[in-house]
């Protein structure tokens, strides 16, 4: 069972706090914007040079000069600003962005992340991911617990080329919410109907379970 992609995004949205500037990666992270809790005001940064991203434009109102980091046409909210790429990464590297959410192919129990390259296959490039993971204080990885072949993506050590070292603090998967600290995945919450045993069996890395693990409130 477990959550679908929208469920993962919805759970991550619960982590948002009012007043935060947030950078959402491509894929599941993008969906987080659809589930901002009521009463919470956050602002979205896109590393190609915009703060205060709004929803997609109405058909016919697309502007080729206004896109997000996924190259999608977007709009802006009141109070938005545009800036160059150096300033954009000054925001990121300088820790002015309070939360970064991104996808991953693998995460290790010490917080390493691999999400940009599969040797022998196409290498698309890291884009801004290495800057984001090396800089952010608060990184949440959004991903499925296992890959399509059923192999755990929460590992003792990443097998793929790394994007960053010891940087991921939290992982939200279709099965669980996990905190990474002291070299282990600490199980914080289970997806509705998912057992600790199932999570344990699908986590290759060191999993710490203490006491009763609550279900996500979702």
């Amino acid at each position, binding site marked *: 069972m477990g959550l679908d992609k929208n469920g993962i995004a919805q759970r991550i949205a619960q982590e948002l706090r009012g007043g935060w500037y947030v950078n959402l990666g491509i894929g599941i992270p993008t969906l987080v914007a659809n589930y901002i809790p009521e009463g919470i005001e956050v602002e979205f940064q*896109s*590393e*190609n*040079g*915009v703060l205060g991203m709004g*929803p*997609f*434009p*109405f*058909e*016919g*109102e*697309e*502007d*080729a*000069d*206004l*896109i*997000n*980091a*996924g*190259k*999608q*046409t*977007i709009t802006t909210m009141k109070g938005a600003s*545009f*800036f*160059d*790429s*150096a300033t*954009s*990464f000054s925001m*990121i*590297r300088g820790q002015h962005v309070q939360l970064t959410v991104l996808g991953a192919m693998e995460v290790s129990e010490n917080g*390493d992340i691999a999400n940009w390259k599969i040797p022998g296959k*196409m*290498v*698309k*490039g*890291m*884009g*801004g*991911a*290495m*800057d984001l993971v*090396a*800089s952010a204080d608060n990184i949440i990885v959004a991903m499925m617990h296992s890959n399509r072949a059923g192999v755990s993506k929460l590992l003792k050590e990443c097998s793929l*080329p*790394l*994007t*960053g*070292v*010891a940087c991921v603090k939290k992982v939200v998967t279709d099965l669980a919410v996990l905190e990474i600290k002291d070299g282990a995945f600490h199980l914080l919450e289970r997806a509705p109907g998912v057992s600790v045993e199932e999570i344990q069996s699908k986590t290759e890395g060191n999993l710490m379970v203490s006491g009763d693990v609550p279900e996500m409130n979702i």
Partner: protein
Amino acid sequence: MNKVIESVEQAVDGIKSNMTLMLGGFGLCGIPENSIAQLVKSGISGLTCISNNAGVDDFGLGLLLHNKQIKKMISSYVGENDEFERQMLSGELEVDLIPQGSLAERCRAGGAGIPAFYTPAGYGTEVAVGKEVREFNGKPHILESALHADFAIVKAWKGDTEGNLVYKATARNFNPMMAMAGKITIAEVEHLVPAGELDPNEIHTPGIFVQRIFQGQHFEKRIEQRTTRSR
């Protein structure tokens, strides 16, 4: 100081095979379409191109790739281009992938006379191989060096005869830093206006960084991912 040139032919005059170019833009947004088209016509080859992306198969830098005019790409993300993939996997094309923030900062450093700086981005990854590592405030950083180009080619929304530039929305992206880092910087603009028409307070790239400016023609401004919502 009048920097205006009359044609795209004059704009790329002096760009020769095996030179290093910087080209502004993020995806297809804010790319110097006119100059790229002229480079395709020129037939020069062996180029090293510094650009965040490599265009798509039939637009932007993809046109130069298709023509095999590019020897090496220095980029952060090149995932939208099949011909790129083919040339890279076959070894025809050299590729240097750089974290996007480091790429932006290295261009700025090149223009700003900063030969090198430390950044946390890429520490512990293959990007750090062969680079000096140093700890600051208990956190490891790697030393990155400035990038320079024989020619930088940028695209602006408005520009005046003195080379002052104003960009529009997210079409700004890498253009301002690259404008700083070219030995010769060429700007193609959608609207070329007389000196004095732009508010000095609102200029993004001061004319000192620009050596040639011209009125671009027929901007296609292609959209890569047309995403919309219903009314």
